[in-house]
C-alpha cells in the first residue's frame, strides 16, 4: 500500500534551474571544472582579440572600392568584353540563365513546403535584387542590367506559382526541368550561329563565378552516378570489370588534379575524334568530373561495405534479383551512410574548380588575380579581393553543408 501511494504522489517536475537557460548552459559547458574555466578564458581572449582586429579591418581599414571596380567580371569574367561579344550586349544571357535557376528554386521552395529551401531562395534572390541598386552610374550599369537583376524576385514567385498550380510541382519534374534548364543555359551562353541576339561567344571568354558554378554543377551532377557505377564495378565479382574500375579509381586518385588538368591539354584531344567539340571548358569539365568520380566511388564503396550482410540475405530470400537489391536496398542505405563524405567531396570539387587557371581559364580567383596584376594601382588592395573571394566561396560551401545536414536529418528517420 505504501509504495502505491508514493507512486500516486510523484508528480512531473521541471528540470532544476541550473541546467536550463543560457546561464545553465554556460555553467554546464564552459565553467564546470577548473580546467574548463582555464580553456574558456584563453579561448575567449583569443576570440575577442581576433574579432576586434578582424572587424576593425573590415569596417575601417579595408578599402573595398576594388570590388566595385571588378564589378560584373566577378560573376561572368570576360563574357561581355568587346572581343567575346562585339557590341557588348551579351550580358543578358547569363542573367537570363540566372532567372531560370530562380524559377527552379521557386519550384523547389513550393515543393519542399518552406523551411531551408525557402530561406536559401529568399537570401539569394534578395542578394541579386540588391545588385540592381548598386551605386554605379547608369553608364557603367544600365537600366537593362538592373531590371534583369530585379526580375529575380518575380522569377522566384513564378516558379513557386508554377509548382503550386500546375502538375509540374513534383520532385521528379523539378529534376527533369533542372536538367533541361542546365542544357538551355549552356546553349544560351554558347549562342547559336546565325540567330540574332544569340551570336556565339567562345568558351575561352567564359569566366568568373559563372565558370566555377558551371564546372561544379557538371562535376556534381555526373560524379555521383559515375562514382556509384565505379563502386559497384569495384565490388563486382567479374574480374575484368573489377580490374578496370580499380585501375581507373587508383589512377585518378593517385595523380594531383592540377597535373591531370595540365595533362588533359595534351591527352584529351588524342582520345576523341577530331570533329568532337573540343575546348578547354569541356576538357576541364571531363577531368574534374572523373577526378571527383574516383573519390566518390571510394566513398560509396565504404557505404556499401558498412551494410549488414543480413540486408542482402533478406532481399535474396524475398526473391529480389541482384539489380533490384542493389537499387532498392543496398544503394539507398550505402548513400545515406556516407552523405557527409559525399557532400565533403562536392565541396572540395567546388573549390577545386579554381584550379582551371592552369589551363588558361579565368575563373573567379584567377580573374581577380589577373586584374590586380594588370592594374598595379590596385596591388595594395589584393587583401580585400582575396578576403572577398573567400567569403563568396564560403557562402556557397556553407549552403551546401547546411543542405546536407538537413538532408541527413531527413533521411535519418528510422536510422538504426
Amino acid at each position: 500500500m505504501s509504495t502505491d501511494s508514493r507512486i500516486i504522489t510523484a508528480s512531473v517536475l521541471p528540470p532544476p534551474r541550473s541546467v536550463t537557460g543560457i546561464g545553465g548552459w554556460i555553467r554546464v559547458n564552459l565553467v564546470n571544472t577548473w580546467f574548463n574555466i582555464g580553456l574558456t578564458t584563453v579561448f575567449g581572449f583569443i576570440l575577442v582579440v581576433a574579432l576586434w582586429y578582424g572587424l576593425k579591418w573590415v569596417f575601417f581599414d579595408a578599402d573595398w572600392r576594388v570590388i566595385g571596380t571588378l564589378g560584373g567580371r566577378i560573376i561572368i569574367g570576360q563574357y561581355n568584353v568587346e572581343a567575346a561579344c562585339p557590341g557588348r550586349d551579351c550580358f543578358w544571357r547569363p542573367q537570363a540563365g540566372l532567372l531560370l535557376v530562380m524559377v527552379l528554386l521557386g519550384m523547389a521552395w513550393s515543393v519542399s513546403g518552406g523551411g531551408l529551401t525557402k530561406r536559401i531562395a529568399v537570401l539569394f534572390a534578395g542578394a541579386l535584387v540588391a545588385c540592381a541598386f548598386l551605386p554605379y552610374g547608369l553608364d557603367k550599369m544600365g537600366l537593362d542590367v538592373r531590371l534583369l537583376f530585379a526580375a529575380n524576385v518575380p522569377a522566384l514567385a513564378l516558379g513557386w506559382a508554377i509548382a503550386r498550380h500546375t502538375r509540374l510541382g513534383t520532385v521528379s519534374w523539378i529534376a527533369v526541368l533542372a536538367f533541361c534548364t542546365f542544357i538551355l543555359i549552356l546553349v544560351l551562353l554558347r549562342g547559336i550561329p546565325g540567330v540574332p541576339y544569340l551570336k556565339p561567344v567562345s568558351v575561352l571568354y567564359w569566366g568568373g563565378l559563372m565558370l566555377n558554378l558551371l564546372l561544379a554543377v557538371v562535376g556534381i551532377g555526373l560524379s555521383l552516378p559515375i562514382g556509384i557505377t565505379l563502386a559497384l564495378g569495384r565490388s563486382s565479382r567479374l574480374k575484368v570489370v573489377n580490374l578496370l574500375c580499380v585501375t581507373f579509381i587508383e589512377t585518378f586518385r593517385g595523380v594531383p588534379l592540377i597535373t591531370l588538368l595540365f595533362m588533359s591539354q595534351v591527352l584529351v584531344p588524342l582520345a576523341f575524334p577530331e570533329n568532337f567539340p573540343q575546348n578547354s571548358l569541356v576538357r576541364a569539365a571531363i577531368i574534374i568530373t572523373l577526378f571527383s568520380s574516383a573519390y566518390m566511388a571510394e566513398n560509396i564503396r565504404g557505404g556499401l561495405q558498412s551494410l549488414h550482410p543480413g540486408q542482402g540475405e533478406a532481399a535474396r530470400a524475398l526473391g529480389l534479383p541482384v539489380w533490384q537489391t542493389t537499387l532498392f536496398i543496398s544503394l539507398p542505405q550505402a548513400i545515406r551512410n556516407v552523405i557527409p563524405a559525399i557532400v565533403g567531396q562536392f565541396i572540395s570539387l567546388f573549390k577545386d574548380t579554381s584550379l582551371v587557371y592552369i589551363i588558361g581559364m579565368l575563373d573567379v580567383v584567377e580573374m581577380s588575380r589577373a586584374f590586380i596584376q594588370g592594374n598595379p594601382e590596385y596591388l595594395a588592395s589584393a587583401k580585400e579581393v582575396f578576403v572577398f573571394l573567400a567569403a563568396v566561396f564560403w557562402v556557397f560551401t556553407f549552403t551546401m553543408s547546411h543542405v546536407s545536414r538537413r538532408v541527413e536529418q531527413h533521411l535519418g528517420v528510422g536510422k538504426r
Partner: protein
Amino acid sequence: MTVYEETVGVEDIIVYKDVHKWFGNFHVLRGITTTIKRGEVVVVFGPSGSGKSTFIRTINRLEEHQRGDITVDGIAMTNDTRNIDTIRRDVGMVFQSFNLFPHLNVMSNITLAPTKVRKIPAKQAEMLAMELLERVGIPEQADKFPAELSGGQQQRVAIARALAMQPKIMLFDEPTSALDPEMIKEVLDVMHELASSGMTMIVITHEMGFAREVADRMMMFDEGIIVEDGPPAQIFDAPQEERTKLFLSQIL
C-alpha cells in the same frame, strides 16, 4: 504409377537426397536425406554449430550445396537462376535479427517484393499488407520505420513481409532468440496461428513448449546429420538416440 511419383509424391514439398555441404574444408552437412510434406510443421533443434541454419538456408539457396539433390515444390535446385528465382518466390524466410530494411517504413518493407518481384499493383499490395499487419496484430504501425518498433513488433513485420509474397513454405531461423522474454510470446502466437492455417513451416527454435504444442515433427541435428526425426511425443517422451536424450537433458 511412375517411379517419379513413387519417390516424390505430390504432397512432398521438400525432398532432400544425400545433401552435402562444405565451408572450405569443413564438412557442415554430411548427407541430409529427408522429405517434408505439404502443411507439415517441422521444428529443427540441436547443439550450436550442428548445421541447422546451414540446412534451412540451402532450401532457398542462401547457401549452395555441393552434393546431393534438393527438390522444392517439384523444382530441382540447380544452378539455373530461373529455378532459384522461382523457389525463392515460394519460400519465405524469417531471420533471428529480423533484417528489416531500415530505410523503408513498415508498409514499404512489406510491399517492396510483391510489387517488384510479383508485379502486383501498388494499391493491391498495400491492401494485402494491411491485411497481413492485422493478422500479425500491428496494423497501427504501418507508417513507422523499423527502428521505431520493439523487437517483437519488428519480427512480426518480418513475418508479414515474408507472407506478402504468398509463399508455400516458411522458414524460421531462431525467430525469438534475439527477443526479450516478454516479446517471445507475441511472435510465437503469430507462428502458432500460421501453423494452424496449414502453412508448411520449418522452424529452428529451442522453445520446446512451442515445439511440443505446434510441431508435427522434430528433427535433432548434430554434427551435420539428422540424428533423430520423429513426432514431439517420441522426441520428448521416448527419444531413441543417446545424443537426443543428452541434448534435451541439457536444455530442458
